[in-house]
Every structure is written in C-alpha cells, then in structure tokens.
C-alpha cells in the first residue's frame, strides 16, 4: 500500500519520531493531501474532512512512537485514519443514520451484466464521487478503505469491526448502494428490472 507518487521518506519518519519538529512538519506536508483526500471521500462534508484530517495528524503525533519502522508507514497511517474516521462516523451513525440500517437489511439481487456494463461506461469519476457522498457511512467507509487506500480485507474487517469473511459482503452491498445512487432509482437486477 502506498500513496501515489510518494516514496516513503524513512529518514523523515525516523527524525519525526525522535521529536524533530521540522521533520514532522515535512512529513505532514508530504502526507496531508492524501489523508485529506481519504477523509474527503470517507466523511460526509468538506468541513468534517478538514476536521478529521487535523485530528488524525494530532493523534498521529502522539502515536508516532508506537509505529513499527519495519512496516509500511503509509499502511499504518491509513489504518489510523480509517479507525479515526470510522469512529467519528459510527458515533454519528448511532444518532442520526438509523434509517440506513433498513437499507443494509435489504436482500441483494445479481445485476443484469450488460446493464451494469452500460452504467459503468456512462458514469464519470465525478459522478461516482458525488454518488459516493450519498452512501451510508459503512458503505462509504468500506469502499474508501478498499479502493482508495488499498487496504486488505483483514484490515477492513479490523477497522469496521466485522468478521473477515463478511468484508466481501459489506463491499458488495456498498457497490449495490453506489449503483442505486448512480442510477438515482431502483436496484439493477437480472432481466433489466430496476
């Protein structure tokens, strides 16, 4: 796992861990855009994403001593970010998004392949991002963890607090939610019924 265009700056990380403020500042500038984009995809509003980015880096500063240098810094960073965002979303979800539970209980039906192909061909990246922002917290978070940060199923299971075998189900359900959002109406099912 890595941030596109960034080679992990090992020396910078070591100096930041040792308390070098300058190194920490450089590290922040290196990773802040990627983490902000992660938060922007995961959180419902831009303000939330800004707050979350700030909080993640504040948390990171306290936790940097716990980082194991033998592992990928980027992977660790995304894990911290995912846990923080999901923690925020879950707390809100408990209070505000109870209606989303109903959506999660709906049975899924296999889409009609040609129709799915057509839908994907017709939709732009911008439309996907807009649709993503309308999804429920868990669906959005799962997709972001998988397709933005390239987190493994184990890591996603750990962050979302679900058993590993169900990660696929969570992701598939999220895709279905996304398709509905892209269509702006019913589920794509076999036979072309929507």
């Amino acid at each position: 796992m890595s941030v596109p265009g960034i080679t992990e700056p090992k020396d910078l990380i070591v100096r930041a861990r040792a308390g070098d403020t300058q190194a920490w500042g450089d590290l922040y500038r290196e990773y802040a855009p990627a983490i902000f984009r992660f938060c922007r995809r995961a959180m419902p509003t831009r303000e939330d994403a800004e707050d979350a980015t700030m909080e993640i880096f504040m948390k990171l500063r306290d936790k940097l001593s716990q980082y194991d240098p033998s592992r990928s810094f980027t992977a660790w960073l995304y894990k911290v970010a995912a846990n923080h965002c999901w923690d925020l979303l879950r707390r809100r979800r408990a209070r505000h998004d109870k209606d989303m539970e109903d959506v999660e209980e709906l049975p899924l039906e296999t889409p009609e392949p040609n129709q799915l192909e057509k839908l994907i061909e017709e939709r732009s990246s911008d439309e996907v991002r807009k649709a993503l922002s309308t999804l429920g917290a868990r669906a959005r978070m799962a997709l972001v963890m998988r397709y933005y940060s390239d987190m493994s199923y184990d890591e996603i299971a750990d962050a979302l607090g679900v058993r590993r075998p169900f990660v696929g189900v969570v992701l598939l359900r999220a895709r279905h939610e996304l398709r509905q959002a892209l269509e702006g109406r019913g589920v794509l099912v076999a036979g072309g019924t929507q």
Partner: protein
Amino acid sequence: MSEQDTTRHCDELTLMMYVERQLDREAAQEVSLHTQTCTRCLTLLRALDRESRLLTRSMLEQDEPLPARLAEFHEQAKRSMRWIWGIFFGLAALGVYAFYTEYIAGFQSQLEQAGFGSSNLLSLMVFQGAFYKGWLSMFTLVEFVALASVAALGVFAIRKYLRRGTALAVMFASLGLFAAFVTPAPASAAEFRKNDTVTVGKEETVKGDLYAMGDHVRIEGTVDGDLFGFGEQVEISGHVTGDLICFCQSLRISGQIDGNLRSMANNITLTGTIDRSATTFTELLTIEPNGKIGRNLTSFTKSLTLDGNLGRDLLTMIGKGTINGTIGGSLNAKGENLTINSSASIGGPAKFEGDNPANVSSEAKLASPLAYTKMEHKSHQRGPSFSVWTIIWAAAYVLFGLVLLSLLPSFSREASSNVENVGASFGLGVLVLFAVPIAAVIACVTVVGLFVGLATLFLWYGALYFAQIIVGATVGQWILGRVSDTWALIGRMVVGIILLRVAMAVPFLGIWIKFAVIVWGMGALSLAVYRRMQPTIAPNIPPVPLPGPTSPLPSNTTVGS
C-alpha cells in the same frame, strides 16, 4: 461454450472476490473455467472489474486542493495562538477577582459575622455545623455508592483528556478527598422515626441523633443529639441538646435547643430558647417576647418580627422587619421596610440598606444612630466602572467559553446546533432550569443523596454559564457564517458573547434577555446530553446476499494461476 451450456451461474459475490483476488486457488480455478464457457458470467466479471477500476480512479483523482487551513502544519497555528491564551488568562484572573470581591467576599464576611466562623465557603456549606455531623453519622454504603457514581461519571466525562499520569493524580486526589470525608466521622447512633405523627413523649429521652419524618412531629421529651425534622408541622416543646435542622411548613419552638437552628420553613415561631445561632429561610419569622436566641440570627424572610431577645448580631434580608425586642450585637438589614419601635434595644452598630428609610422610634435604645443607605439597583449603575466591569465579565465569559469549547469541541458544536431547534430547546430549558434544582434540593434533603444533590446543583450552576456560551457561539455563527472548525467556532463565540453581554446590559430589558438566553442555552445543552445518552448501536453484520453453495471464505486466500 455458450451460456445455454452452463448449469449454474456464479453469484456476484464470488465473481467480485475473484476480481479482488480473494478466492482460494480451487475456487478461483472453478470461476476461471466457468467464465470460459458462460458469456453471462464473463460479462458480469468484466463489468465488476471495470467497476473496481472506476472506483479506484474516481477516488484517487485529485479533484480539489488541500484547504488553506490544512496547508501549513497545525503546530505553527497553535504557537501563534499562545499570546491569546495569555491575554485570556489575564482577563480571567480579573474576572475571578471581580466575582470574588463582588459576591463572595462580602457574603462570606457577613456570614462569619453571623456566627458561622468559617474561613472557607465550601466548608461552610458542606462541612460546618449540624448538617455535616448529621451527614457523617449517616455515611452509609448507599452514600458511598452515590459518591462513587458521581466520581465515575466525572471521570467518564473527561476520559478522553486523561493521560495515565493525570488519571493517577485524579485517583489519588479522589482518595484523599474521600479520606478527608471519612476519617473525622464520629461514631454516634442515629434513630429514624417515620409516621403520620411522630412524638417523643414528655418522659422519653432519645439518645443520639433523631430523624423524624411525618405530618406532625412533636418533641415533648428530650433528644440527646441533633434533631432532623421533616414534616408539615414541627413542634418542639421539649429539649434538644444538639442542633435542630428542620424543613417543614410550620415550626414552633417553645422548648429548649442547646445548639443551632437551621431551618427552611413557611413560618417559624419561637417562644422558647435557642442557645446558639439560628439560620432561617422563611416567609414569616416571629420571635415572641419570651423567645430567645443566644448568639446570632441570620434570616432571609418576608416578614420578621423580633419581640424577644437576640444575644448577638442580626443579619437579615427582609421584606418587612419589626424590632420590638433586644439585639445584643449589631443589626445589619437589607430589604424594603424596617421599623424599630420604642421598646427595642440594639447593643451594636445598626445598618439598614433599603428602598425606604427605616422608621425608628425616638425612644428606642440604639448604641449608635441607624445608618441608612438607599438601595441601589444594579441596573441603574451606569458609571465608568460599570462599563469596565462589564468588559471584564465579558472577557471572563470568553475565557470560560474558550476552555469549554477546547475541552468539549464536539459536544459544544452539537449543543450550539441544538440552539436552532428553538421550540425543543426552550421547552426543555424551562424544565431543566426549574426542575433540576428542585430535584437536587430534594435529593439533599433526603440526606442519602446529599452528595448527588450537591453535585447536581454544582453542575446546574455551571450550566447557567455554559448556556450563555453556547447561545453566544450560535449568534456568532449567524453573523459570521457556520463553521465546524473549533478555533473558528471560538472566534464566533467571542463575537456572540460580546453582543449578548451588550444586550444584557440594557436596562430592564437586559435581565429578560439574559433569562431567555439561559433558558434557551440550557435546553440546547440538555438536548445534547440527552442525545449523547442514547444507546450506541453495535455494527450489525449484513446478511449474505445470495443463497447458494458459496460460504464465507477463509482469510488470506489468493488466486493461484
């Protein structure tokens, strides 16, 4: 092989996991073989793969730059704010000083003068006198649980801000506090009596403290200890060797109290003797000609008639006061009307601050002429010092808000957004503003819940100020726009607080504005607390979408090729 040749299609989950390389070798080979012959599944597989790539591409695209406030390392911003903290703390110190000199110092000296003899307001309220003694004798497991619950609630509320060292410090401080409460506890027995009518007969002697609860409480005999009376009518014609603490509608004392009287009652009539001091909150207080208080009387009453004898000082806030008897010490009264008749005698200095001059008989025996001061209502104070103190108070509020918003940013934001829910906030605000203190006082009266009651009162009092901060933050956001960043919210809170303080300084109208703001903010806070106390929903596991032979796969499986 055509689609018609296939007996069964792959389900979408299996195909997606194939694309994601999450199937084991055997399952992956099955899918691979099947899709070579099944056009439908192959088309779906390709569509899912394209969907994955579309998702990745959409998410990785750099569609918006890093916001300006995130562009620089946050630590720099924090450093630049340090001087503001210095100013705020300086102003806060002034605010605290203002509060102390304006309210506490004067009140404290008056109470000390009235015989409480305490140098500390907290110890005065909680640990002095018969309340403390009575409470200590009642210190049971229930109270310990109540105390522990309050402490646990406090720790829970600030758990996010506790580091290991801080937690240890808090724990040791709590233990110290607990030890301070428990160690001086005297071992004295207490007796409870509860009935419609509770009577201690003429020949009867109750050894130790007595807690008497009933419609009618009659003490004709002796209570060798403190007496705690709760009832509609309480009559003491016997002898109480300790203090009398009484909450009732009507209290009549014709007997002998060796200790102090602390009472909240509708009317109190004294024809007997209280050897030490009396503190009363009552509508009507009458000390008959043969009534006697050995030391001081502190009274908050609508109508006070003193025909009897008071050994030392009288400190009172009255609607109407009439003095016919003797005051051995000083008189310090504040209220509407005061009459000192010809039979009255006052041994020390006499002061009256009121709306009307006191009516003093020329035949009354006064050690010095009565000093009268016209009562100045604060709303009429509009001098330069008033403006200075208004600014200092506003600054103190700002500091208080700064601390609260920094410590509880998300709670404050929630409460601030609740302010806009006007109906619910006002309704709940009225309820909480009046019901909570009543409930807390009732909890205090039951003794068992004394600490819970005091803690609730303390929180309620703090919430009166927090409410204004919250409304200020919302007003600031109305003017400068909504924000979610804590520092930006603090900035708006400062603007809002300043505007509110200015509005509250308007004569006559200001007090109503303040009341409305408190009710409103109190409701918003209560709503936020209520919503926080809703149970958290555990993440539920979604059902498997399709029935069939596909079962959840083992972890760390990949497709072999």
